């Protein structure tokens, strides 16, 4: 980029910002519900200042160079906040692309020689494209962090061990079972068995959407571990579709006690513990 261009851009910083803001505000996808205009303005101003300030360096194409790190830092910060605030990828992308348009527009106004204009535009394009790639990378990273945090929360809240009766535990499993979750489920269940000295555990899988061979393997593991502890484990809540899949996959559940509903599992547990539930006849005087 010739010295002229960057000086020009620095001089026209205000113009660029105004144009960019105009572009952003004119955009249909403007999310006033997520970010206020003032905030958007200060974000944009910060970025433009940093960007134009760094255009003075000779090194435009190599974004890994130190001169670019403040720009990337600011952009990364904006991208991550946007990911957390729930902006869509398109909206975040438009944020950067509209800046490119503003820059090009200013160039077009100021440079009359079409050859030079093309060369300069190409450079601006390259820089801005690189910056948008960085933005997307950080945006996705921010989204992934959100997802990871939610996964952790789900695993924490979704494995309660319920004491349904003295000596009977129930563990309703909701959601897909993977190795990590099975580990947590197993640990919680075994710990609770030790603490309550329960002899029967009911594993209710009515909330598990699908059972494949891996999930079945995990279930069998949990049942075997419970057995090793000296308690009996019943699997309940098996839906017809799951029974079909299990048989089609050739999974052997014959040495595991299975019941169709939690109620029948509980009835079985009562029978094993020699307990009886009876209806009390109302005495009329």
């Amino acid at each position, binding site marked *: 980029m010739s010295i002229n261009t960057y000086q020009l851009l620095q001089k026209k910083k205000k113009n660029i910002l105004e144009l960019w803001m105009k572009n952003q505000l004119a955009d249909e996808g403007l999310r006033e519900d997520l970010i206020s205009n003032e905030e958007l303005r200060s974000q944009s101003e910060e970025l433009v200042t940093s960007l134009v300030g760094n255009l003075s360096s000779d090194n435009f194409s190599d974004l890994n160079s130190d001169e670019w790190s403040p720009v990337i830092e600011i952009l990364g910060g904006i991208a991550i906040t946007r990911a957390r605030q729930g902006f869509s990828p398109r909206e975040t992308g438009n944020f950067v692309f509209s800046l490119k348009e503003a820059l090009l527009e200013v160039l077009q106004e100021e440079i009359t020689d079409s050859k030079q204009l093309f060369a300069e535009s190409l450079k601006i394009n390259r820089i801005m494209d690189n910056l948008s790639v960085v933005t997307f990378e950080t945006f996705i990273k921010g989204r992934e962090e959100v997802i990871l945090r939610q996964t952790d929360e789900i695993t924490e809240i979704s494995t309660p061990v319920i004491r349904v009766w003295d000596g009977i535990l129930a563990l309703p499993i909701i959601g897909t079972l993977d190795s990590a979750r099975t580990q947590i489920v197993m640990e919680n269940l075994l710990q609770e068995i030790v603490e309550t000295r329960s*002899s029967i555990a009911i594993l209710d899988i009515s909330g598990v959407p699908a059972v494949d061979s891996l999930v079945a393997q995990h279930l069998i593991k949990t049942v075997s571990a419970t057995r*090793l*502890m*000296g308690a009996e484990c019943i699997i309940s809540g098996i839906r017809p579709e799951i029974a079909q899949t299990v048989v089609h996959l050739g999974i052997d559940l014959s040495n595991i006690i299975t019941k169709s509903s939690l109620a029948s599992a509980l009835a079985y547990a009562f029978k094993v513990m020699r307990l009886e539930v009876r209806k009390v006849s109302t005495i009329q005087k």
Partner: protein
Amino acid sequence: MDKIPILRMGAFLLVTIQVDLYDRLALTLEADLVQMVQKTSAKGVLIDISAVSIVDSFMGRIIGNIASMSKILDAETVVVGMQPAVAITLIELGLPLKGVHTALDVEKGMNLLKTMIDFTEDDEDLTEDDLIAE
């Protein structure tokens, strides 16, 4: 050398493992226990492993072996008080200890043994009296 004591309780043998088993100790226990089953013609063996926090595939196999050997000598084996971590490890090692009975604690293990063993044999009364006396 260390030795794990084997206590006789009527028709049953009671073994409480209070230390972490190393291989040599486990092998000695296996030999001693089988000898003892034969000598006392015990009907049941109760192994309490509530103090064992570390287990490996060798230990798992020894417990399985003890159960099978006792079975041949007409004694049932009950393993009691297994810790959650130990149970998970054994499962992950692919050792579900088939053929070994389990119970949560010594009390429940004893009840299980009592229900399992056929008391219709001749020395039934004596055995039960012994148990109560002790």
